């Protein structure tokens, strides 16, 4: 292999997040499946592809945020058990599919494929990772190819929560504590929930040792003063938080719903699923418990084209497309870096942040595309290398000072997604609950360990954090699963308020507290005193 002439860097950041969904009281919540689908379609495929690269001695670098709610769910014994149940049901379904499709060779081949895939998931999850995928990710961090960063405790949207700044402080504190618990060290970076940046949060980011953040492109482009190299070099805020901005060109190539990579006609069609296509009585045991047809994950068709009959999915064709696109991505970055490096006095960094669940769940071939791309970058004679933001800072520590622009990566770049007439009623309640939590923490500054009151105060903190999840607001705006999101807000605010009143009257209902602490069991080590002034 020739020695590369490195003129710049590309940094992939995958944001892995799901809201905390845990219902020991019932198995009927469809929303719980989001986790199982994400494990099968995104997290396990990513781990397997990383493993392949490791085995093939391909040196690669990638950054991932694993959010605290996701870590809590991956670590949850009940959800692990239910995931195994989910897999067994899918294996059973694909067995039936092998029989049902025996007269259709193309469907039959895919039924076999799904049978193997889900069986392999079960083997990987149970036997290789011992139900502990966090350890799987930690391994890649420990060998130096993956940099894991943290996130706000429950993905609370800072620009709106900041009305009560201790609420933001607690989001950061619990995010960092959760990270330390699972990875045994402090996080260097944080994925700001929804990339929501407010300069006022910098002091807390620094207090908890955060070195860098990721912002949307205009977080850098509209910064004050103007960054001389745009998003192609990081900036550092007056308080010392380094900000990396999303690259526009590479984002478009992957994200665009019109001509982005995931829309390739050979790729698997997400919206055709046997959950909708198979005979009702046959598929009934594998769809929603109330009989509503939903996705099962078994999909037989490719995108094929616009407004046309769908052709069967062909795994080899899909792989060919992924390989072609990986080549295209590599060529584009090479010429981008060639052009930039001639006008910059530091090597440019092209930052490519994406939702992790895009890879595999939505873009089924995404993990394979990453694998091929990383291999190509390693072996081809291109002018750049992969890097993590942390390593970039280490190598090029002299950074232009500038305050990033208040921004987010939501529609239109500011706060409309989380604050609009569909969900604006929520913020009043979040603000009041936040103030009440601070009030409680100051009223009871040092309750004895193991006392009922401390237990209740800690549960209050959990309820508040869970209510603050930006996901509920997002879902309401988006218009799907709205009832669930609204109920979650009501439940957490309701439980919080009930406990708040009980604590103040010194009349704590032990059974109630016990029951809700089994449901809302995220952050077992939380310490409510983070809310005291």
């Amino acid at each position, binding site marked *: 292999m020739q020695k590369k002439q490195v003129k710049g860097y590309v940094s992939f950041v995958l944001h892995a997040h799901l809201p905390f969904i845990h219902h020991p009281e019932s198995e009927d919540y469809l929303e719980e499946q989001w986790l199982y689908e994400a494990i099968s379609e995104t997290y396990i495929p990513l781990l397997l592809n990383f493993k392949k690269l490791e085995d093939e001695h391909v040196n690669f670098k990638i950054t991932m945020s694993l959010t605290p709610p996701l870590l809590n769910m991956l670590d949850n014994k009940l959800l692990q058990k239910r995931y195994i149940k989910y897999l067994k049901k899918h294996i059973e379904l694909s067995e039936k599919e092998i029989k049902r499709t025996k007269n259709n060779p193309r469907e039959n081949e895919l039924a076999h494929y799904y049978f193997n895939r889900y069986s392999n998931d079960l083997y990987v999850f149970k036997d290789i990772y011992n139900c502990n995928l966090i350890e799987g990710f930690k391994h890649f961090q420990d060998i130096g190819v993956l940099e894991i960063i943290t996130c706000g405790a429950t993905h609370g949207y800072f620009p709106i929560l900041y009305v009560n700044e201790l609420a933001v402080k607690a989001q950061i504190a619990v995010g960092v504590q959760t990270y330390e618990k699972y990875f045994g060290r402090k996080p260097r970076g944080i994925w700001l929930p929804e990339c929501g940046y407010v300069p006022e949060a910098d002091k807390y980011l620094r207090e908890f040792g955060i070195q860098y953040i990721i912002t949307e492109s*205009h977080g850098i482009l509209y*910064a004050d*003063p103007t960054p*001389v190299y*745009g998003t192609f070099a990081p900036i550092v805020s007056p308080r010392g938080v380094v900000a990396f901005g999303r690259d*526009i060109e590479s984002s478009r190539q992957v994200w665009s719903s019109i001509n982005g990579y995931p829309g390739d006609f050979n790729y698997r069609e997400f919206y055709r699923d046997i959950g909708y296509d198979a005979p009702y009585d046959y598929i009934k045991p594998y769809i929603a418990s109330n009989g509503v047809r939903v996705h099962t994950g078994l999909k037989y068709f490719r995108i094929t084209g616009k407004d046309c009959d769908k052709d069967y999915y062909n795994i080899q064709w899909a792989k060919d497309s992924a390989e072609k696109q990986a080549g295209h991505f590599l060529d584009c970055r090479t010429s981008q870096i060639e052009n930039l490096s001639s006008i910059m006095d530091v090597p440019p960094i092209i930052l490519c942040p994406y939702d992790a669940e895009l890879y595999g769940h939505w873009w089924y071939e995404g993990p394979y595309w990453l694998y091929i791309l990383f291999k190509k970058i390693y072996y081809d004679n291109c002018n750049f290398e992969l890097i993590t933001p942390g390593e970039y800072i280490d190598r090029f*520590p002299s*950074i232009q000072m500038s305050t990033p622009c208040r921004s987010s990566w939501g*529609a239109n770049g500011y706060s409309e997604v989380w604050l609009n007439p569909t969900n604006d009623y929520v913020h009043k309640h979040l603000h009041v609950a936040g103030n009440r939590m601070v009030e409680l923490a100051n009223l009871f500054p040092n309750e004895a360990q193991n006392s009922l009151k401390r237990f209740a105060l800690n549960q209050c903190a959990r309820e508040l954090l869970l209510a603050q999840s930006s996901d509920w607001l997002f879902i309401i705006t988006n218009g799907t699963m709205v009832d669930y999101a609204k109920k979650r807000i009501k439940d957490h605010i309701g439980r919080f308020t009930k406990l708040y009143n009980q604590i103040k009257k010194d009349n704590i209902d032990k059974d109630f507290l016990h029951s809700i602490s089994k449901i809302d069991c995220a952050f077992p080590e939380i310490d409510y005193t983070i809310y005291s002034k």
Partner: protein
Amino acid sequence: MPRKAKTKEENSDINKDVKKTSNKSKTTTKKTSSTRTSTTQKTSSKVAKKVQNTDKKSTVKKTTTTSKKTLNKKVPSKKNKKNLKTIRVVKTIKTKLKRAKLFANLIEYYDLPYSYNQTVIKVLAQTPTILFVYWEISKEDRELLETNYGKNFFNSTYPVLVVHNLSKNYHFEVPIDDFANNWYIHVPDSKCKYHIELGRRSRSSEIIFPNNYLSITSSNEIESPNDHILFEELGNTIYYMNVKNNEITTKDIASLSFMKRIGKIYNIYDLYKKMYKEQELDLKNPSSNNPTSTFR
């Protein structure tokens, strides 16, 4: 699209909207609450039924799964197999019962309170030029106003929001009405500090305040986000921080060649703007337009 309070003329329409929606929301909450209670009852009875059913179901299921498993392993004697089976079944029933017991007593239904009986006004920035305001006046403060200014206080005055731009030092007023408890306000300037006052003005000569204005409460202070590239503020010197040792250095960028470079960088962004305009997508990549959005 967000509801926006735009001009004075449009406000009357908006008020109607607000009234309508508040009525609507009342009826819907009633509905949901009635159905909710029935569902909780149902679910609790369901739980009880489930517990009964689980005995049967789990035994049937378990026999099939355990027999499969044992096939692959060493075949134990029939008696052992039976014992194992029953132990497992008893265990699962026990845990299920325990769980059912734990949550059977948790019958809960919550609604968000309409008011917290506090006198407060809060302002949030929705976009660089739209602020969202919500407010409330406590019962005690309402009574106090009526004692001070007469029983007819609220009828003979109307509420206004006074928007103060603290960066550019101007203010303007948005008349609102007592049916609303929140408002979207257009402001002319991005990247400015604002705070908002909730006050009242007299409708008639019945009540007279100094300057015809009575301040009720004042909001938090916020800065609206910036929405453009700040070339004009760049100056001739830029500052660098070495994040390893916090050392700060400066660089003179007044030279023509350096300005040319910056120009080249930002030309790239202009190019993007033109390129992506054709796709009807602007510079800011919306996550809610991306395909992963419906996952969450």
